[in-house]
């Protein structure tokens, strides 16, 4: 009987996963560099960058969510204070970034950015907190069996 050309075991699977992780990181960094190059060097309008920006953002958000759910990011018990701190940091960073990105100067524009960022951040943090909580519950159930 012919042996299969490609064989795998725990070592090869682990290696492939490490390589995938490495290349995922390289791809994300490269996409960020491409975004900055197209925006700052080529001067392309922001409308043309939305596809790449959405891809990078969605990837990072989903990556964090999956890591929290499966216990890749262990944060202990989900407590209110760290969640609020993460939320405040996200809101501050997001408001500063969008204000800079759109060149806003008036209070009305900045307040508009703040409300948008605060709403999106609240949704994000809530989803992450729920995922972390559900993941922890699942892990606790497995350990108690």
């Amino acid at each position, binding site marked *: 009987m012919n042996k299969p050309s490609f*064989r*795998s*075991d*725990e*070592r*090869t699977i682990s290696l492939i996963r490490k390589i995938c992780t490495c290349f995922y990181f390289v791809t994300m960094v490269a996409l960020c560099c491409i975004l900055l190059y197209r925006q700052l060097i080529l001067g392309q309008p922001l409308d043309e960058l939305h596809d790449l920006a959405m891809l990078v953002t969605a990837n990072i958000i989903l990556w964090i969510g999956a890591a929290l759910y499966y216990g890749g990011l262990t944060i202990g018990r989900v407590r209110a204070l760290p969640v609020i701190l993460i939320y405040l940091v996200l809101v501050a960073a997001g408001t500063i970034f969008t204000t800079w990105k759109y060149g806003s100067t008036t209070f009305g524009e900045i307040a508009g950015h703040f409300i948008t960022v605060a709403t999106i951040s609240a949704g994000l943090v809530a989803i992450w907190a729920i995922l972390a909580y559900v993941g922890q519950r699942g892990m606790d159930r497995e350990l108690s069996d």
Partner: protein
Amino acid sequence: MNMRFKLARVAKDLTQQDLADRVGATRQTIGLIEKGKYNPSINLCIRIAKALERTLDELFWEET
């Protein structure tokens, strides 16, 4: 270098490929374990120990 592992395999008259086939690993993995360059999981250690009819201690335990 894990000489006890290699000697146990040779004593059973098995090649690296034979042992790899029995435990569901690749020949390269068996070679790396023998050279001490790969730490196998406990599941693979148990499969290897059963295939060579040795205990885990006999194959992998290192006196400090």
